[in-house]
């Protein structure tokens, strides 16, 4: 399957039903090695389900998923994460009772951040892993929260929680990032900040973003994919999408 190796993500005839409802209907797509994509579509089109299938949080009914040539169709969530996959959620999903620093720490689980020479990594004080502590500092700085590292995440503002969530996604230095409406519920100032942040992070990463704010999404990439009733109905540049009859139908009906 050497062709898959050249691509970041490959989906082949992926299907998922909940009860009698087809949430994802025979979806196939390829995301090239240095490509990103924007996923749009009406509510209930299956965008988040598609993310859940890629990350493995929801099992496939049928089909195949590859990440950098590795068949992960039946792999555990951990294995996919080890291969360089990270995501954020539509509703902030954090450890609210833990500090900002601890939240980032928990995201650093790949081998790269494990302390070498340590026979009992589980029982040593977590703050002694210099590798990780340096990385946490770096990540918190890059998301603009270095002065809030000891604050419980549940006490941060919504915008700051988004920043932490992005921090957790970038912390293990993933190759692929799935961002599920990163701007949802943010004020204009916060949106501008997060927008800049994502653009900065987007360098050298494959990003798939679900976003209703098309102008923002187009900043990251001009590769758009439209999903409706669990099917990819169009894919391509903004111009080709705008001219697509099916897309026009879907958005007129809304």
């Amino acid at each position, binding site marked *: 399957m050497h062709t898959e190796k050249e691509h970041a993500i490959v989906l082949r005839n992926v299907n998922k039903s909940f009860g009698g409802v087809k949430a994802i209907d025979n979806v196939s797509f390829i995301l090239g090695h240095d490509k990103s994509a924007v996923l749009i579509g009406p509510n209930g089109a299956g965008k988040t389900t598609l993310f859940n299938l890629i990350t493995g949080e929801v099992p496939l009914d049928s089909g195949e998923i590859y990440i950098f040539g590795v068949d992960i169709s039946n792999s555990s969530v951990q294995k996919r994460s080890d291969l360089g996959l990270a995501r954020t959620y539509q509703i902030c999903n954090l450890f609210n009772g833990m500090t900002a620093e601890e939240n980032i720490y928990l995201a650093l*689980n790949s081998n790269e951040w494990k302390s070498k020479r340590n026979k009992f990594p589980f029982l040593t004080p977590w703050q002694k892993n210099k590798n990780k502590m340096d990385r946490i500092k770096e990540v918190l700085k890059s998301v603009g929260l270095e002065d809030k590292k000891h604050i419980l995440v549940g006490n941060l503002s919504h915008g700051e929680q988004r920043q932490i969530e992005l921090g957790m996604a970038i912390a293990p230095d993933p190759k692929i990032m799935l961002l599920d409406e990163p701007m949802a519920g943010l004020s204009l100032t916060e949106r501008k900040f997060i927008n800049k942040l994502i653009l900065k992070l987007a360098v050298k990463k494959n990003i798939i973003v679900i976003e209703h704010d098309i102008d923002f999404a187009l900043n990251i990439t001009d590769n758009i994919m439209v999903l409706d009733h669990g099917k990819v109905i169009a894919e391509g540049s903004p111009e080709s999408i705008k001219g697509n009859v099916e897309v026009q139908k879907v958005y007129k009906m809304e």
Partner: protein
Amino acid sequence: MLLMTFINGLTIAALLFIMAVGLNLSFGLLRIVNLTHGSFYLLGGYIGLYVYKATESWIFGIVAAGIVVAIIAFIEEFTLLRRVRGKPTLETLITLSLAIIISDLLIVIWGGNPKTIKIPELLKGYVTLFDANVPIYNIFIFCFACFICLTLWLILQKTKIGMIIRAGVDNFEITSTLGINIQLVFTLVFTAAGFLAGIGGAIGGTYLMVAPGEDWRILTYTLLVIIIGGMGSFGGTIVGSIIIGMIFSFGNVYVPQFSLFLMFAPVAITLVIRPKGLFGRITS
């Protein structure tokens, strides 16, 4: 009298803490109430008694109780509970069935007569505190619970595994998406809870008695502690143990006819006013 009742209350609280902290942590992580926990306690008591008699070493008895029960807890988690993860009804039924099986087996093996584990020579005797003669064994149970409490606190707050456990209790859904092997942590916590229950049984059996029915009694008190203190909360377990321990001790001395009522009334009030418990964050 007042002081002695207070000290007895603290002793029961200490014993309940040893039992409840493991159960509460595994509840916080796995979201199931392990009804086998009381049987683990009684099994620990019998094993402690058996090994103590065989080796004449009380310490061996305690350690053996912890290890044997930990192994059984491990087997329960690894072979049974893991298969039905996420199905609360099945999980609860499995723990209930095992509890009944273990209870009956204990009667078959050790009979129905109550037994006591003799206090070892080193811990016999009294210390006079103001006007009360405090048994050294009571002081030992209290110190031992403090030791367990401090050790667990240090592990939870300072070590990597502790942080992962806290993370699992806080937001169990995302731990696995972060690449954390949460299955392993489940098994570890469940086994550790079994170890503590086994030790608790042997130590408690030396203070109270080892007899059929004690398993359900201790399980009930332990559940009361968790409901009052808060599910998944470490601090809540400490406070809940002290509240239940004190009510048990003072109730039995001053209003014995109301002692059960006094224990369940605060639980009912907590459930109405603050269903999560005093320090709990988990609602489901």
